[in-house]
Each structure stands twice: as structure tokens, then as C-alpha cells.
């Protein structure tokens, strides 16, 4: 009796005792090894056929080592079954040779893509998919005639004693000629011109004027092109338009021609549009959303879009009207009810279904971030009405947290139950590294400069006393902790900041605190060393709160902060004051209002805008302190030897700084085509004094020009980027009327306008890269007298940005400044300037 085990029906199994077990067939494995692996033992009782036998065979198949497995048995006396296991081993790959292809890059790609590594089991399937993959690759490059031949050549394993089956793969590629399209002929079109029809197609003719355009023929694209042509006809009323015939004619090896014959049919108009089945919304409400009237040119594409726009998930269409208000199960179909002359009546049939409510809402995949940080950001919560808009917005906002891979956030509906009107929702997140480390050493400013910066963006303050929370640092509460220390021979600066986005966990009130301390020593040019007896200290801190508003809409944030800095000078003239020994205090309150609805990716926003207006002000001390600042020079207390002493006067004026500062900033992001985004930016700033006799302090001023990187500054200055000009060069230059020396105190007014086109190269989790081109202009002034919003320093240029989670943002821009740099007399334009951008988002 010889039967393959798989052939016998399982039901009538009989019990046997296992006798001899033998292994036959083509295998390099030791017989005992195979038998031991099956687990079958001589003398074991088994059923034939039976579970045990199928298990053994399945176990062997699962190894993936055999191309064929058969179990035979012969019955001898006393119900003893002698088993014979016949196995055919799959040969292993030894070497791959690829011929007929010149590019090494492609060879490596083919090997990698098809996993053609030595030791791979060479199955028929592997050969077939490899051949298809390569042919597909060439056809997508325009080589329609590419032909791939794969042969297997058995080889002897050179290792002694090995009985492995080895084969070489010989892949022979005949690339053939690249096929180009010499002509696209269109027939039957009267309403549309040939050009208009061709414009709908992504398949293009060969044209020496447009040498950069591809003119290769790709089957898939061509099929899509035909649909596009019909779609365009439909959108202009030609409902019956169709392509009667199309043919591809081979001119020679390299050229083909495409002949298309269209039938345009008549132009139609919309007739009556009625609604059926709507109970939640009235016909009038639905018509308002539909925005199509009787008598409009028939447009099938538009009608589809007004019912359900597949290209925009948040479109204002009929489906979303229902989907955003709980009607998950609603279905909307348009049906032509009557066609007469050139008019079509429509009936829009609506099945509303039950209102759906969320039941369980869960988040999965958060292996660093604590639940409460995520759940508080969900706009879809248990017991709430289903709304597609809320789901979309939640995904967007979770992406903006910066803790997760925004590109891979996926909401998933589960247990959708139309009868009960419930559904579960699962958000799948993938954590991405949110911490940044900055470690720099360099030579600059007369000595070694070392910087250590740490920024933890998903920190957990309460975890710092829990030793189990350190892997490697307490994470997951959504807090930010940044530490930074910079030390050089003649200065040191330390700063620390912490922020908690939901103070108290009840509402999104962001608490920000920071502290910084700077010591600057006098640089002694003679000894080329720091003179530590002469120094300048700045110590300060700030506490701020920001809260998201719900009125007028919930993109608004209001913020407030108090800040304090103490400046102390010891025998150190920094040019800001007329005194080398003394102090100044800067206590200010900042209030801000921001509206931000940028989406989706914080590194590369594709839409939305951000506006902010901030006011920073100090108390108006001069209102009540009774000091006559205009007359200090005549006061003997501020004189030395009967002459006004500028040091004493300045010490009085800048004892407690007094000013107010107002800034406005607007950013718009508009998606132009696909991923191409235009950023439009407008900025204004104004610094003023309450008391003109006391004057505007030399602090807190605006310095326009260059890369806009803050860097190290003593005087709380604001650096404003304007590319194409040297750093901080676009500031009004004062000339001392007596000495003629120039003095650069920074501006008290500035304005800036900027246009930037961005295009992403990759938006990967590990690295986002985009290129940009910009045109911008700005100017700064000493006061309102000089202010002229149209007299700008203009520039244009291009650049690239790379964002990597571990390093933050890096970039380089090349800008050409069209106008001369203020303070230079040559009148030549500023010219090309490179700018390096580090760690700045915009």
C-alpha cells in the first residue's frame, strides 16, 4: 500500500504502531536529525490518517526548507506501520550574476529588493517575482521592450562533505530601446482643442522645446489619462463624452504614436434637483451645501465632489455634513431621474441611518508617553456623537504634539455597529524620539568655546525621584526641560527652562519658567586673556502662563509672563551705558495673543496660519517717582565738578528700565500644488518710551538682517532674520555730531515682509528635508519720523532645511541683497550671502 498521507480522508483513521522510519529523497540533512525533528518515535501509537501525521508534515513545511514533502507508509504484521518520509530540499542561492545592465546601482537594487542573498532558498516563486520586478522597473522607466531571462545553474558546494543543493542565478537583462512618443493624434474633438485634450494627459509627446519633460510611455499612466480626458469633458457639461477608440502604433524600435478618437456628445445642463430620504436637514439646507442650481452647466465631476469630495477629507460637502454630525452610516447617491433635450433632473437619495456614538476610545502604541498626555488631546471621547471632523482634527493635533510620527498616525474604527449606533475608535501611535542634544566645541572670539545643550521634549518631572523611571531619563509627561551651558575663556552662560503644557491637568494652561545667568569678563587685548576683575553679570528669570481659548475659536492662545533681569557692571564699559560701574534692572510684563491653526506637520506645515500680537511693558516708574529726567544735568547730585556727569545721569535713567514694546507677526501657509507650499510672513515691531525725557533705553531693540539667530547678547536685543544681508546690519547708524564716530544702538521700529516657496524632498520620521526659494524685504528705523513702510531692503534666494529628531533643524540659505547696506557709502548692493540656520523652526 502506497498512499500520500494527504490523500486519505481523516475520518477513517486507524491506529498503528510506528515501525521503521526512513528518510529518502534529495536532502543534505542527516536522517536522524530529520526524524528527531519530526518527533516520531519507533513504537509510538499513531492514527493513520490522523492529527499527528498532519502536524508532522506541517511542521516540516513550516521550516521552509523543502520544496516537496511526502509521507508513505507500508503496513506490516501486527498493525505496524513503516514510515518513509520523502523530502525534496529547496536549493540555496550561491551567487547572482546580472548581465546586460550597465548600472551597478541598479544591480544592487535588484539584489536588495528581491532579497537575493547567498543562502536564500531558490523557489519558483522567487524566480518569477524577481523577473516581474525587474521588468516592471524598466517599463516604468520607459523601456517597454525590456526582457529578463533568469536561469538556474546547479553548482557543487566546495565545502567538503556538504551535500547542500546550491544554484547560481544568471539574470540576463535585455533592456531594449527606450520608447518615446512621437505623436499624440486626437480625432473627433470639436469643442475641445487638441491641445486641451493633451493637457489632461500626463503622457507627453517628444518635444525638443520641453526636453526636461519625460515622453515615456507608461501603461498605467496612459489608462489614467483617458479617464482624465473624460472627466474634463464631464466637468464642462459633456456627460456622454467617451473615447471610441485608441491605438498605439509602433513607428520603429524607439518611437510610438498614440491615436485617440473621442466622441464628445451634446452639452447638458442641470435640471431639477430633489432630495429624498432627508429628515435631519431640510431640502433648503442641503441645497445650500450642494451649491448647484437648475440651469447650471452639467458637471458630473462637480456633482460627485459636492456629494463626497474624495480629494479633501475635510471638504464642505453633503457627505461631511452628515459625517460631521454623527451620521456615520449615512449614504448619499445621486440618481438621474429624467433626461429631456439637454437637461438632466437629479434625485439625491439619502439614507441617513442611526446617529453613531463613540463607545470605547483607546490609544495604542504609546510606549513612552503616558495616557493622560494623549487622552486630554482627544476630541473624540466616549459617549460623544461621531464626527469625522473631530477624528481628523485629533489626528492632526496628536501629530503636532511632536511625540509621535505625524505621518503614521492612524485612526481605526472597530466594532462598528449600525444597529446600536456605536463604534469604537483606536488611535495607533508610533513614538518618535523627542529629545535633542547639542554638544559643540569650537575656537572663536579669542579662545575655546564649548556648548552643552540638552532638550527633553517629553520629560517627566515627577519621575526624577523614581529610579525605575530612568530609561534613560524620566519621560512621558509631555513636559519640556532644557539645559544649556556655554563656556569660553571670557564668558560663561547657563540657562535652564522648564515647561508644563497642562498645569494642574485640568485645562491646557502652559507654565513656562526659565532662569539664566551670564558672566562676561573684560577681554584684555594686551595679555590676550580675560581680565576677571572687570566683569559684567546678567542674572534673570521669567515665569509665564499661556492658555488656549475657546472663544472666538479654539485656535487662540492668550499668554502672560513676568520677567526680570539684573545687570551689574564692574569697571566694564559695554557701550550701552555711560557708566562703567553700576547696575540696571529690567522688570517687565509680557502679554500675548496668538492664533495658530497650522497643520499637519509642525516641521512642514501645509496649511493654516499663525498670527501673534505681543506687548511687553515695564511699570511707568517715571509717572510717580517725581524725577525730572529732562533736568538731571542741572541737578548738583548728577554733576561732577559742576559739570553734568553722564555716568551719574545714565545710572539714574537706567536704574529701572522703562519702555513698552509691541510686536505683530503673521504667517500664512498655502498649499499651491500637491506638497508645494507658500509661506507668507509679515512682521512689525515698535519700541517706545512713556517718558520722552527719560528716553528709550538701549535695551530690547531690534536688529534686522542676516540669519536671525539669537546667539549671545547682553542687551536683550531681538535679532530679526532678513536674508541677503550681513547679520544685524540693517539698523540705523547714528553718527555722533561732535566726534563723528558711529554708534549702533539698534532700531525702535521695524517691518518685514517675506514670501517663501517650499517643497519637501522627504518627510521621513528620521529626517525631514525640504528646499525653499524666497523673496523678502524689510527695514528698521530710529523712530516714527523716519518710518516708511515701502522703503525696504530687498532680497531673494534659495536654501534647504533638514530636520532630524536628534539634532533639530539645520539649514543653509543663499540670499542676494538688492539694496546697499546702510552705513556704507559705496552704494553697491549687498550681493550674495550665505546663512546657516541652526535649531530654529522657521
Amino acid at each position, binding site marked *: 500500500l502506497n498512499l500520500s498521507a494527504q490523500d486519505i480522508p481523516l475520518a477513517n483513521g486507524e491506529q498503528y504502531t510506528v515501525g521503521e522510519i526512513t528518510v529518502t529523497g534529495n536532502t543534505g540533512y542527516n536522517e536522524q536529525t530529520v526524524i528527531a525533528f519530526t518527533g516520531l518515535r519507533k513504537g509510538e501509537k499513531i492514527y493513520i490518517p490522523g492529527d499527528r501525521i498532519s502536524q508532522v508534515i506541517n511542521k516540516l513545511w513550516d521550516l521552509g526548507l523543502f520544496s516537496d514533502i511526502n509521507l508513505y507508509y507500508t503496513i506490516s504484521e501486527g498493525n505496524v506501520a513503516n514510515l518513509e518520509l520523502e523530502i525534496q530540499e529547496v536549493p540555496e542561492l550561491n551567487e547572482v550574476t546580472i548581465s546586460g545592465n550597465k548600472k551597478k546601482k541598479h544591480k544592487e537594487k535588484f539584489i536588495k529588493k528581491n532579497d537575493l542573498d547567498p543562502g536564500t532558498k531558490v523557489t519558483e516563486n522567487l524566480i518569477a517575482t524577481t523577473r516581474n520586478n525587474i521588468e516592471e522597473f524598466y517599463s516604468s522607466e520607459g523601456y517597454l521592450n525590456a526582457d529578463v531571462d533568469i536561469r538556474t545553474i546547479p553548482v557543487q558546494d566546495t565545502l567538503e562533505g556538504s551535500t547542500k543543493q546550491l544554484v547560481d542565478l544568471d539574470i540576463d537583462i535585455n533592456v531594449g530601446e527606450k520608447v518615446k512618443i512621437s505623436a499624440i493624434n486626437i480625432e473627433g474633438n470639436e469643442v475641445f482643442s487638441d491641445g486641451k485634450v493633451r493637457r489632461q494627459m500626463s503622457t507627453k509627446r517628444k518635444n525638443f522645446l520641453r526636453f526636461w519633460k519625460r515622453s515615456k510611455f507608461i501603461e498605467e499612466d496612459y489608462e489614467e489619462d483617458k479617464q482624465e480626458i473624460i472627466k474634463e469633458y464631464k466637468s464642462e457639461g459633456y456627460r456622454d463624452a467617451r473615447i471610441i477608440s485608441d491605438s498605439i502604433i509602433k513607428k520603429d524600435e524607439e518611437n510610438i504614436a498614440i491615436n485617440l478618437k473621442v466622441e464628445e456628445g451634446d452639452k447638458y445642463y442641470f435640471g431639477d434637483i430633489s432630495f429624498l430620504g432627508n429628515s435631519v436637514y431640510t431640502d433648503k439646507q442641503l441645497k445650500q451645501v450642494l451649491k448647484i442650481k437648475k440651469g447650471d452647466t452639467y458637471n458630473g465631476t462637480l456633482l460627485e465632489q459636492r456629494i463626497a469630495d474624495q480629494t479633501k477629507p475635510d471638504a464642505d460637502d453633503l457627505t461631511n455634513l452628515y459625517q460631521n454630525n454623527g451620521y456615520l452610516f449615512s449614504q448619499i447617491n445621486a440618481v438621474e431621474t429624467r433626461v429631456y433635450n439637454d437637461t438632466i433632473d437629479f434625485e439625491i437619495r439619502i439614507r441617513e441611518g442611526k446617529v453613531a456614538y463613540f463607545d470605547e476610545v483607546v490609544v495604542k502604541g504609546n510606549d513612552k508617553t503616558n495616557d493622560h498626555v494623549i*487622552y486630554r488631546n482627544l476630541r473624540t471621547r466616549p*459617549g460623544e456623537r461621531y464626527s469625522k471632523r473631530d477624528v481628523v482634527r485629533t489626528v492632526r493635533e496628536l501629530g503636532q504634539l511632536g511625540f509621535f510620527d505625524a505621518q503614521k498616525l492612524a485612526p481605526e474604527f472597530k466594532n462598528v455597529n449600525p444597529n446600536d449606533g456605536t463604534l469604537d475608535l483606536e488611535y495607533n501611535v508610533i513614538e518618535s524620539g523627542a529629545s535633542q542634544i547639542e554638544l559643540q566645541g569650537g575656537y572663536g572670539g579669542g579662545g575655546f568655546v564649548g556648548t552643552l545643550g540638552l532638550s527633553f521634549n517629553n520629560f517627566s518631572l515627577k519621575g526624577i525621584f523614581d529610579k525605575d523611571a530612568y530609561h534613560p531619563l524620566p519621560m512621558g509627561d509631555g513636559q519640556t526641560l532644557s539645559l544649556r551651558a556655554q563656556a569660553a575663556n571670557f564668558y560663561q552662560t547657563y540657562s535652564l527652562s522648564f515647561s508644563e503644557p497642562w498645569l494642574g*491637568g485640568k485645562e491646557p494652561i502652559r507654565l513656562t519658567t526659565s532662569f539664566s545667568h551670564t558672566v562676561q569678563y573684560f577681554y584684555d587685548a594686551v595679555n590676550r586673556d580675560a581680565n576677571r576683575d572687570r566683569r559684567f553679570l546678567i542674572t534673570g528669570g521669567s515665569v509665564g502662563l499661556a492658555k488656549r481659548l475657546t472663544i472666538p475659536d479654539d485656535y487662540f492662545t492668550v499668554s502672560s509672563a513676568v520677567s526680570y533681569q539684573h545687570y551689574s557692571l564692574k569697571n566694564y564699559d559695554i557701550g550701552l551705558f555711560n557708566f562703567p560701574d553700576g547696575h540696571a534692572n529690567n522688570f517687565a510684563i509680557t502679554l500675548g495673543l496668538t492664533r495658530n491653526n497650522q497643520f499637519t506637520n509642525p516641521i512642514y506645515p501645509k496649511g493654516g496660519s499663525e498670527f501673534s500680537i505681543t506687548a511687553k511693558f515695564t511699570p511707568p516708574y517715571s509717572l510717580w517717582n517725581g524725577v525730572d529726567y529732562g533736568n538731571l544735568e542741572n541737578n548738583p547730585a548728577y554733576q561732577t565738578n559742576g559739570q553734568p556727569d553722564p555716568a551719574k545721569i545714565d545710572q539714574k535713567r537706567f536704574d529701572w528700565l522703562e519702555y513698552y514694546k509691541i510686536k505683530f507677526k503673521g504667517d500664512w501657509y498655502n498649499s499651491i500644488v500637491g506638497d508645494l507650499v507658500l509661506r507668507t510672513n509679515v512682521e512689525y515691531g515698535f519700541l517706545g518710551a512713556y517718558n520722552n525725557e527719560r528716553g528709550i533705553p538701549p535695551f530690547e531693540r531690534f536688529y534686522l538682517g542676516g540669519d536671525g539667530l539669537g546667539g549671545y547678547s547682553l542687551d536683550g536685543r531681538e535679532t530679526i532674520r532678513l536674508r541677503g544681508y550681513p547679520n544685524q546690519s540693517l539698523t540705523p547708524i547714528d553718527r555722533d555730531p561732535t566726534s563723528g564716530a558711529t554708534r549702533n544702538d539698534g532700531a525702535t521700529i521695524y517691518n518685514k515682509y517675506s514670501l517663501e516657496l517650499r517643497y519637501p524632498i522627504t518627510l521621513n520620521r528620521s529626517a525631514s528635508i525640504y528646499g525653499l526659494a524666497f523673496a523678502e524685504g524689510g527695514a528698521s528705523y530710529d523712530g516714527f519720523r523716519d518710518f516708511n513702510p515701502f522703503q525696504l531692503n530687498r532680497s531673494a534666494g534659495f536654501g534647504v532645511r533638514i530636520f532630524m529628531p536628534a539634532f533639530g533643524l539645520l539649514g543653509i540659505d543663499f540670499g542676494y541683497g538688492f539694496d546697499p547696506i546702510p552705513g556704507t557709502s559705496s552704494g553697491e548692493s549687498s550681493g550674495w550671502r550665505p546663512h546657516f540656520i541652526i535649531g530654529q523652526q522657521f
Partner: protein
Amino acid sequence: CSPYQKVLKNEEIKPKYEMAVKLYEEGLETGKNNRFKKTLQLLEQILPQYRGTPQGEKISFIYADSYYQLEDYFDAGYQFERFTKAYPTSEKAGEAAFKSAKSYYYVSPRYSLDQTETYKGIEKLQDYITRYPDGENVAEANTLLSELREKLEKKAFEIARQYYHIEDYKASIAAMDNFIESYPGSKYIESAYFHKLDAAYLLAINSYQYLVEERLETASEYYEDYEKYYAEGEFSTKASEISADINQRLKNF
């Protein structure tokens, strides 16, 4: 060159096997981690050759257990799982099943993170208890199992309570309801009933006037639910106070 290095570089597999077994046993006696690390290095070289041989069973177990002893529970869980699948009839199968489950227990993160490993640990522990009801580790398995279950309970309860904390009372009621349904035996059940009542009460009194009465009545029902099971409960004083206020307010309608 130490004897270990010699064996490691040697082509022959038998000395590796013998030394690996010796190092593993030394490791168990002395508790020294480097013994297990060396064992793993040796076994990685010879594991494929021994797969399917009579010694393969022993090697696979030692391999998995070395990870376990090194507290590398990610690998230990997986390797023990493979062992139990490959050698279901082994006398070590029970121990392996338990250690596999316990590895998932160790890997399971704090309640506020994704609980995929916790679910897996629960499944493995239950599996072990069903398959080896008289096994020597059943008592411990039960303890671990309830600990993992409690973690899931805490997770669901804390999420529901967060909705309460951020004053989304509707979501909190729905989430507490789901919690009560999913974890009827939990130690947080009383608290869940109370929070549901409190949330419904706070929702009612902060509603538009025309909704207040209906919502107070719902809250009143929730009070009865609470009172039915926890007349002497931890929150019963607070619950009675709320109920009294509800009744007072309802009189005005």
C-alpha cells in the same frame, strides 16, 4: 588566550556545547552574569546545527534560560515560547511556559503606557494555569495574573477619571460605564459608581436650564445604583450629600 576564547574560535561544535552547559551550570550556582553571557555567545554559534537533534532540546532551554537569568525578558519570553512550541512534550515544558509568561509579566510597562505586553502576559499565564493545573508555579502564576489584570483595571479607571478631572462629564460617565461593564470585580468599582454619580450631578447642575431636570433625574438613578451596592461604602457620606442636593433641586421643578 583563555580556554573560553579558544573554544569560541574553534570550529568544532562539541567542545562548545560542553563548555556552554558547564558555564550555564556555574552561572546558576554562582549567579554571575558573565557566565550566562558566555553561554549565550557559545550557543548562538551552535544552535542551528543542533536544531532537531536530541541535544537540541537541552540547548534551547539553556539558551532561553540564560536570557531569563540575565533579566533580558524580551528575549527570554520569546525564546521560551519557541521552546514550548518546539518541544511540547519536554519535561521542562511547564517550567518554560511559566518562565515565558513571567517574562512578559516583567516586560509589561506601567499602567499609563501601551499594554500589549500585559495582554500577552495574561494570555500566557492563563495558558499555563490551564495546561498545568497542578504545576508547581500555579500559585505564583495566579498572583502575577491578578497583578496584571489590576494594571488594566487601573488604566481604564484612570482614563475615565481623567475625563472627570478635565470636566468632560459626559465622556467620564460613558467611560465609567464601560469600565464597570468590563471589570465587574475590580477594586475600583465602588469609586467608579461614585464618580459616575458625581459626574452626572455636576453635568446636570452646569447644564442649560431646560436640561437640568432630566439630568438630575439621571443622576438620581445613578445614586440609587451606588446606594444599592455600597450603602456603607467609602464614598457613601459624599453620595448622600449629593443625593440630598439633587432632591432639593428637583423640588423646585
